């Protein structure tokens, strides 16, 4: 029952499932590096899923993805307005945005309202489209030649473009963060904002920019979850994936490249437990597998509290602290 085919399918599933976590945690990494803890990620993700569901059915993938980015931008800026400009508590604002996202997405995607939105966008929509709980999936783009390599092929080279984009983004975002002036400025806002301010970095602007990036990637992660991974709408379908991405940021110690590994690891856990459940083997094991990411995060956080480790990985010291110029 468990052979090479099973391993191949779990590994391919790990990348497919992990991309949700990867996109979201790339965004969250930027927010946290700039000193903003975004607990609204769950809400951003579910909004991305709902918007991609509705807009794909109305106007197709391209328009859906653009709208998703716009919604993400707005949600990120909303978070930044409350936490950066008004200096409100980041935990509270984040939770409020998560609840708002859960509520708004559920309401938007409910049958009647969804139908109204789709008809407004596209008066020609058929009855079947209006009633559909699903949406067309993003097409797979297999990479010729590479996709037939055993194990590696299905794992990396037979996915939709968002999977490739997320990998590309993690390199680009790593480079920007650690090898450019912009990245240095951004990190300094999370490390020591008043020092950054004295050196001429616009802390408020940097935090706004990083929250905008975070919002867009968070919503994109949700869109990928829906049109790229499991295109069937269920209210609250993110099921805590946004919060898992927060865990992942810590596990990856705020590093976009390490986030890739972590994302596929978490994705692998999801893929494995799903397949075990389908096969009906080790019926109780999946629950403990699902606890694993959370438990590992708590252990990591504890290790990161050691001064020597903190220094080495560069934990953003001012994370969660509103900056005020006084």
């Amino acid at each position, binding site marked *: 029952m468990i052979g090479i085919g099973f391993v191949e399918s779990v590994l391919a599933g790990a990348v497919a499932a992990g991309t949700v976590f990867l996109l979201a945690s790339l965004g969250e990494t930027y927010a946290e590096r700039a000193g903003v803890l975004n607990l609204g990620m769950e809400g951003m993700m579910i909004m991305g899923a709902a918007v991609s569901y509705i807009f794909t059915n109305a106007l197709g993938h391209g328009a859906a993805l653009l709208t998703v980015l716009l919604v993400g931008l707005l949600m990120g800026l909303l978070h930044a307005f409350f936490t950066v400009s008004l200096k*409100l508590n980041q935990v509270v604002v984040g939770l409020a945005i998560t609840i708002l996202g859960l509520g708004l997405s*559920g309401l938007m995607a*409910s049958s009647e309202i969804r139908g109204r939105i789709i008809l407004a966008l596209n008066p020609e929509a058929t009855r079947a489209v209006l009633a559909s709980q699903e949406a067309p999936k993003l097409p797979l783009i297999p990479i010729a030649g590479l996709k037939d390599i055993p194990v590696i092929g299905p794992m990396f080279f037979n996915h939709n473009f968002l999977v490739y984009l997320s990998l590309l983004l993690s390199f680009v975002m790593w480079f920007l963060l650690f090898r450019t002036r912009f990245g240095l400025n951004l990190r300094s806002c999370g490390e020591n904002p008043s020092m950054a301010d004295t050196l001429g970095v616009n802390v408020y602007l940097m935090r706004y920019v990083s929250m905008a990036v975070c919002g867009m990637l968070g919503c994109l992660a949700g869109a990928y979850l829906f049109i790229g991974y499991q295109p069937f709408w269920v209210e609250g379908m993110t099921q805590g994936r946004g919060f898992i991405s927060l865990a992942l940021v810590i596990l990856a110690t705020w590093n976009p490249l390490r986030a890739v590994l972590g994302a596929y690891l978490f994705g692998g856990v999801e893929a494995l437990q799903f397949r075990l459940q389908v096969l009906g083997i080790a019926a109780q094991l999946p629950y403990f597998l699902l606890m694993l990411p959370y438990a590992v995060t*708590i252990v990591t956080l504890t290790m990161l509290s050691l001064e020597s480790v903190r220094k080495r990985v560069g934990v953003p010291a001012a994370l969660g602290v509103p900056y005020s110029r006084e």
Partner: protein
Amino acid sequence: MLSLKLERRGEVSRKFSAAVSGFFLLAGLFFASIIFELLGVSAVETFSRVVSVFTSQSSLMQAILRGLPIGFAALGLCLAFKMNFWNIGAEGQMYMGMTAATGVVLLHAYYGYIPDFLVFPAMVAAGFLAGGLYCTLPAFLKVKFGVNEILPTLMLNYIAMHFVNFLITGPWRDPRGFGFPLSIIFPPYARMETFLGHANFIGLPAAITAAALIFGLLQKTSIGFEMRVLGQNFEAARYAGVKIGRTLLTGSMVAGGLAGIGGLVIVSGMLGRLRPGAPAGYGYTAIIIAFLAFLNPWLAVPAAIFFGGLLVAGDVIQATLNLPFAAVQIFQSTIFLMIIVGEFFKRYKIRVVR
């Protein structure tokens, strides 16, 4: 050129503070109605459904019942947040409370331990202990290693959820339940309504007593004083000789314990059995309530009942207007956001400067 400048306010009067909060509470409802109207849902009709909950006796009883678990958890959070302990793990602590309470029932039903009349008191004790201990874990990590509690408390919610799912699909599943993930139905003496005819009749007095105890603890005892000092300024507290470890652990034990009691109310007062996903986000709602009550224990229970009413209204809206339960979350989030914006205006004033 004109620009805006923030200025810190000093102490504000109670009247001013109440006026600001009242204004922003209304603003929250206003934003909710804008969202409803934008989506083509009549706000007036939605509101009238919400109001109707509080005008009929039977639905008011429902609102109180739904509000009780939120209220207990929110009381705990008032205490935790006063200590500046950012416990967002009430949901997990509720899970643990309901697990322990159910465990007591199962021990009794399967193995015959514990006489009938002691089952309920034992459930209360077990619920409190389980919720409390689950909350002292992140507190311990904070005291011992300086780990910020925000993410650990959040993570522990999911661990608790999967743990309950494990129990309820495996060892704790009702053997005669046709394979559904449910525990056995609790015997009458393990259910809150047995004692005085309705769960509210012991739940509400208990919640008010708990509010009084938390108020007393915070305002009248030395450890309560230390908790408040700790919340205002960690360094000052250390300098003043507050035993930080002891204070945090005690406080988190009480805070988590109250959430655990909330979990007990869910299984013993509402469902009569354990089932997956039972806290249904009450632990997160409790965070909103703690803020809505300005961390004042006396206000936490009424605020929770108000939100309990919103939950009942959610069911009504679902049934009559064919809207999903998410409609309630719109109310919750806009009220929440506006209440915290109100806090901003209590702290700062905005000046236009030239």
